[in-house]
């Protein structure tokens, strides 16, 4: 099949960007979307032009590196699928596709379709962990975890940190990403000691990173390649509200350093 691509090209964070048109010829339906772009890039290099920069690594939908908008949809049209796993058999000959980077103040464009998602690391650093000194852990079976809790925790922990939820959200909120981590650790007995502090600090970091506010639109859930449900956001809100009450008057960050 043959496709027409309109791709966002931007030399660096400071330069202005624009859409540029490319033809993708003789695309096989067994190719992944990124393999189609590889072929376009090989051709561009041959013509002495600069290839399109896009982020990718594992190409099996788990590292979370890849992701951009295809015709306004994060990771493209197929539900529950990252771009690296999206195959060309889901497109039709002659289609026109518009490829753009994630758009959010908190994710500045570095080049073409590559954005800086460092804000996600800082949200985790704010409290997305269980503090446990290496070597000090009790036996793995010392604390039973009900299967249902472990399963729900795993549903939340499946987040790959790709940023599609932010890109899909009209407010550019990172509530699903943050809610998923708060839910994962909050569901497990190991995460209880720091549960309140975690919620306070991670939510505070969201604001510092200039993500928007969540208004329960639900686009994030629809765009999430791991189909993480928005109930994770409700859990975050519940933990945050409880924590805010618990630590009221204790100053920022839940106090009690």
């Amino acid at each position, binding site marked *: 099949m043959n496709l027409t691509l309109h791709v966002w090209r931007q030399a660096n964070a400071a330069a202005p960007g624009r859409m540029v048109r490319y033809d993708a010829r003789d695309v096989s339906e067994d190719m992944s979307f990124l393999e189609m772009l590889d072929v376009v890039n090989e051709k561009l290099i041959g013509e002495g032009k600069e290839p399109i920069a896009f982020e990718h690594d594992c190409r099996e939908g788990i590292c979370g590196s890849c992701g951009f908008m295809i015709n306004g949809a994060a990771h493209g049209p197929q539900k*529950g699928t990252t771009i690296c796993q999206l195959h060309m058999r889901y497109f039709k000959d002659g289609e026109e596709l518009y490829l753009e980077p994630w758009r959010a103040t908190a994710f500045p464009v570095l080049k073409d379709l590559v954005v800086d998602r460092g804000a996600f690391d800082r949200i985790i650093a704010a409290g997305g*962990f269980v503090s446990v000194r*290496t070597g000090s852990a009790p036996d793995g079976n010392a604390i*039973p975890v009900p299967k249902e809790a472990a399963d729900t925790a795993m549903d939340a922990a499946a987040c790959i940190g790709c940023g599609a939820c932010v890109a899909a959200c009209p407010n550019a909120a990172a509530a699903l990403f943050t809610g998923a981590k708060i839910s994962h650790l909050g569901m497990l007995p190991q995460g209880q000691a720091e549960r309140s502090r975690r919620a306070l600090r991670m939510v505070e970091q969201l604001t510092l990173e200039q993500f928007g506010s969540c208004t329960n639109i639900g686009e994030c859930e629809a765009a999430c390649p791991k189909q993480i449900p928005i109930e994770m956001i409700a859990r975050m809100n519940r933990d945050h509200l409880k924590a805010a009450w618990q630590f009221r008057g204790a100053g920022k960050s839940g106090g009690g350093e």
Partner: protein
Amino acid sequence: MKLDSRIPSGPIEQAWDQSRFDMKLVNPANKRKFNVIVVGSGLAGGSAAASLGELGYNVKCFCFQDSPRRAHSIAAQGGINAAKNYQNDGDSIYRLFYDTVKGGDFRAREYNVYRLAQNSVNIIDQCVSQGVPFAREYGGALANRSFGGAQVSRTFYARGQTGQQLLLGAYQALEAQVAAGSVAMYTRTEMLDLVVIDGKARGIVTRNLVTGQIESHAADAVILATGGYGNVFYLSTNAKGSNCTAIWRAHKRGAAFANPCFTQIHPTCIPVSGDYQSKLTLMSESLRNDGRIWVPKQLGDKRAPGQIPEGERDYYLERRYPSFGNLVPRDVASRASKAVCDEGRGVGETGLGVYLDFADSINRLGRNAIEERYGNLFEMYNRITGEDPYTSPMRIYPAIHYTMGGLWVDYQLMSTIPGMFVLGEANFSDHGANRLGASALMQGLSDGYFVIPATLGNYLASNKLDKVDTSAPEFAATTAEVHESVRKLLSIKGKRTVSSYHRELGKIIWDYCGMARNAEGLTTAINRVQALRHEFWNNVNVPGSGEDLNQQLEIAGRVADFLELGELMCRDALNRNESCGGHFREEYQTEEGEAMRDDENFQYAAAWEYTGQDTEPLLHKEALEFKYVHPAQRSYK
């Protein structure tokens, strides 16, 4: 170069405890005076950086990805072994040790492997405490499954995403240290060289992948945890960015490279479908618990799998290896698949594939049980192939997946360059000639959480290290060399793209140094790789400049290194006149086609010393001793 493996003496059960007691300590107040560099942020690097930061060292951690959470450990699917014996099925530390030494075909160090088996139980505890959501039984206890090469259920898992969950545990611990100020994280930063001063590793030179800036970092010790070199084959299950650059450039600075020809071909990957293909996708070994592998008995049988009656199917693993059946180790399963495809009984359009069939398990356990165990893998298969494995069998074929070889390290994980340590897949230490499933995660975390915190302290406390900063002339000299190699890559502006060279190199290595090797083929491969490398340096086209984000330049540097490493792999394979584990030399096999070791002449680790671009490397041998597990021909029959 002298290889001093520093293997402890005395009974193996007490060796690690005794070594730890014998090691010197750095007192808590002094730890912050030491600067430590960790390159790589996967299971080994991430856990090391987090644990060392927590101990109080000043740590800098580097990764080329945009976040430490992207390291390729994240893609490991099936599980992690631990000798917990929670199943009451006869497991023990000694049995895990025994299985691993045997699985590695008697080419690993016994003392290292024993320590690994000991640490395995602490790893599970550590990860559970971090909130890793391992699969659970209804009673709340941890669940287990079986993996190849073992007759007990000792594999812990988090659906088909065990690597992801373990890595996120380490990553979260690492980010906690970043927040605490003990670890400085350098993302999108690639190590391009090692700085050696007075014979000791004292720093690295890096390139900022966004600005193109070449930078220097000084330290008291350097830890490489940069993963394996499977991408030398171009098509592999590794992430596209996985590369050998850090370990190869350290090799060129004096670190011996051990057993480079020991590479693992994983039996269950989705077969290649076309020339544009950029990578291969693994289907977890855990699928072999419930899937049965078969091909038609008849040559060239083109009927759809459902049309082939039971009596005309050859379940060749069950037939050849009745006691282990579909759960034979990876090297054995891969070779058996190749054999039936070479006979012309392979399935699918290319004839390079075998069936992995779940029909019996679905009948026995119900679709729900299978979905619960492997749902995400079945979905992934469906997305890639457009076929539904619930109703028709998967087609699978072997693909390169892991590299047992790597930089030579002693028992304390130090390379032949004092002060440079190597952890995880990047070193050669624990898996011998073949790694058992669910053991890579175990090794990465054992090295990072439990071994390096002890051995690094010993190095720092027993060496008087001069203060060094990046103004030392060695930094200037190494930086100048890095600048020059970047400039050279960009200046050639030839006719061929970087990936065209990479594909060609991969094909040579796969054809001659893949699942089956012979002396003639390896000699051909060495010549062809040399010629290809020569052409690369005269005709490669790396577009753009070095002053910004330039993905082609990044890949070009990595491919240049693969072009050198590929030759060393072939030399090592040519030197090793025996078959063992993943290294199968066609000249050395039993009548039944099984690998035939030569313990008299090859019971050693081959450690290669770099002598220059166009001169032959020097071979050093570390003899392997087996005091506990007596070398025998591996039998899984």
